[in-house]
């Protein structure tokens, strides 16, 4: 193929992602002229209809933004409301939140690693196709995913849109005997996750890396999940309430998701690669050992290797869930009282695909006056487009069909959740 030709690499409907989007890459005179990650998922206007609702409704309403990571929405919203009320939910009530979140990480990561991303590496259209040649692998993946869902069902009431989370804590704290049956399943899940690290580490990875600004939450003594300061590898270290001073969102014509960037510097990456790079020392010893064995270091910057990092996080989430269950004592009350008062509050937690930031203003009766939600996928949009540009520039001699697959794989590195971001995806590679 002549490099001087115009080419368009295009995918109208990107498969194996959550939600609706596409991609277009235009190549002209052997250079990438334009990259667009198009997000045409129809907007649903959550921030608008949250206005006028009770502050206590935020966790149930915002959960409906995403069926894959409802816990993330519930956790960021309750944190924000509790900050307004001046309440800190600690002890076992907080431990249960982390446990529920571990369930979501396991369910979501298992879905993405095996059912959405692995088929790219192994050359299948789907996990169901993959199951014909690798039945044992797919069976284990489903078992892992099921355990994540069971944690969510026991603690939260059900796996999609859990019912048990409330501002201040829970409607009912689970009994120790309800958690006990999860132990054996989580031990088995941890074994499968360790195998997943070994299997994914052995995949072939495109040669690509980039010096990203990595952004995630950070706590002194634990791997980031449900709280922390927002930090980056470029020296950012802020309270979640200072987000607006350092980040900005922009509306572009080709996307129903707003694009985010660091005010001073530009695009950034959130999600597993960022958490691993900045939180490596706070992983459990077993998860760290698995990462070391897979040849991962905190300096890892190849986004295609995020599948290995996700597998390491699967080990961590199972390990952490087991720790939380072992240390669990039934709390005296399932929730702390939260009396509304007029004010503004922020909440930020680590959804499986990166930081999810909420900001609410409520009045003294607890009615929501204003709501803003910034999901991880919209934060990663610019970085995804930059990766696409980089990947295509290094692969200009690759035929269209293969290049399209490579671009789709590069997008799936981010486990994009378009339902979340639409506020958000179609892929086209156009060679003009």
């Amino acid at each position, binding site marked *: 193929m002549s490099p001087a030709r115009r080419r368009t690499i295009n995918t109208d409907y990107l498969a194996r992602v959550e939600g609706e989007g596409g991609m277009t890459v235009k190549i002209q005179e052997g250079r990438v002229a334009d990259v667009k990650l198009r997000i045409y998922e129809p*907007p649903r206007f959550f921030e608008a209809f949250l206005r006028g609702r009770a502050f206590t409704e935020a966790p149930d309403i915002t959960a409906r933004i995403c069926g894959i990571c409802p816990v993330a929405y519930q956790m960021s919203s309750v944190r924000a409301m509790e900050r307004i009320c001046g309440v800190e939910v600690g002890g076992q009530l907080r431990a249960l939140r982390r446990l529920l979140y571990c369930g979501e990480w396991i369910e979501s990561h298992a879905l993405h690693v095996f059912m959405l991303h692995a088929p790219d590496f192994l050359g299948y259209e789907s996990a169901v196709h993959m199951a014909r040649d690798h039945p044992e692998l797919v069976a284990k993946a489903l078992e892992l995913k099921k355990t994540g869902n069971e944690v969510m069902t026991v603690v939260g*009431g059900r796996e999609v849109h859990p019912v048990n989370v409330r501002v201040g804590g829970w409607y009912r704290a689970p009994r120790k005997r309800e958690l006990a049956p999860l132990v054996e399943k989580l031990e088995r899940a941890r074994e499968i996750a360790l195998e997943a690290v070994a299997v994914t580490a052995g995949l072939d990875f495109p040669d690509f890396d980039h010096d990203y600004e990595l952004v995630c939450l950070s706590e002194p003594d634990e791997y980031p999940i449900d709280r922390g300061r927002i930090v980056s590898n470029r020296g950012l270290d802020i309270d979640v309430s200072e987000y607006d001073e350092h980040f900005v969102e922009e509306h572009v014509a080709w996307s129903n998701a707003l694009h985010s960037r660091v005010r001073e510097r530009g695009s950034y990456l959130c999600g597993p690669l960022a958490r691993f790079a900045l939180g490596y020392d706070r992983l459990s010893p077993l998860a760290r050992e698995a990462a070391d064995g897979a040849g991962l270091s905190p300096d890892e910057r190849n986004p295609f290797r995020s599948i290995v990092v996700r597998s390491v996080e699967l080990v961590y989430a199972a390990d952490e869930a087991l720790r939380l269950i072992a240390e669990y004592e039934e709390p005296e009350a399932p929730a702390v009282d939260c009396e509304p008062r007029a004010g503004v509050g922020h909440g930020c937690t680590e959804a499986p695909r990166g930081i999810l930031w909420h900001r609410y203003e409520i009045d003294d009766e607890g009615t929501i006056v204003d709501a803003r939600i910034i999901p991880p996928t919209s934060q990663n949009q610019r970085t995804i487009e930059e990766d696409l540009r980089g990947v295509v520039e290094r692969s200009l001699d690759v035929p269209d069909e293969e290049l399209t697959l490579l671009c789709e794989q590069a997008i799936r590195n981010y486990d994009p959740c378009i339902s979340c971001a639409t506020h958000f995806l179609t892929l086209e590679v156009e060679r003009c």
Partner: protein
Amino acid sequence: MRKPKLAVWKFASCDGCQLSLLDCEDELLALAGEVEIAYFLEASRATVKGPYDLSLVEGSVTTPHDAERIQKVRRASKKLITIGACATAGGIQALRNFADVNDFLSVVYATPEYVSTLETSTPISAHVAVDFELRGCPINKAQLLEVITAFLHGRKPGIPSTSVCTECKRRGTVCITVAHGTPCLGPVTHAGCGAICPAYNRGCYGCFGPMETPNTASLTKRLRVLGMDDRGVERVFRTFNVTDFEEVRSR
């Protein structure tokens, strides 16, 4: 014999109901053995052209493009089943039907003219004929399997249209309204979830929409006695099944 072709379509939604199909971890591969998963973008790149024997539709219609697309889906489908509150009742995004959508747009997007949207969020049945509506926000995956199995075998799905109350009784949960005075939508809400909330000391909040013959007027009086104010009552009926509950309450 040719395997029946199954398609899964997404409109405006959270993906949670299609995820429920992937959440059938114990049955997914067996199902894939019985049917040809011909179109399911969330799970597979491979797509097979229609017509499809059975289409599952998630999500509501909120854009001009989707209003056209659902017609094509219907033409390509022998049987069409809606899955979840968005496809069946318009979803929580139907709150826009009771407000000015232009106000909503400017709250979320700095440049509203980039966004193409309709003034209303409508259920699939407002656009095309629907063969069965499966309720829930989210749907119950056991019910999903029942509906798929029933349609593949040409029988009526065994999905009871009674209230959540009957599920509490079956589960052995003491009535939280009677015992604790907790406001609960169970008496008017369609069964299907398995009465999860009362088992967690929480009143039902109506994820499955109205049951077949709901007495919302009577329940409203009871909710007021239990201490809910007017605004509280309005809010609790105006969530994921807002259009269906509003229709029932206006009778």
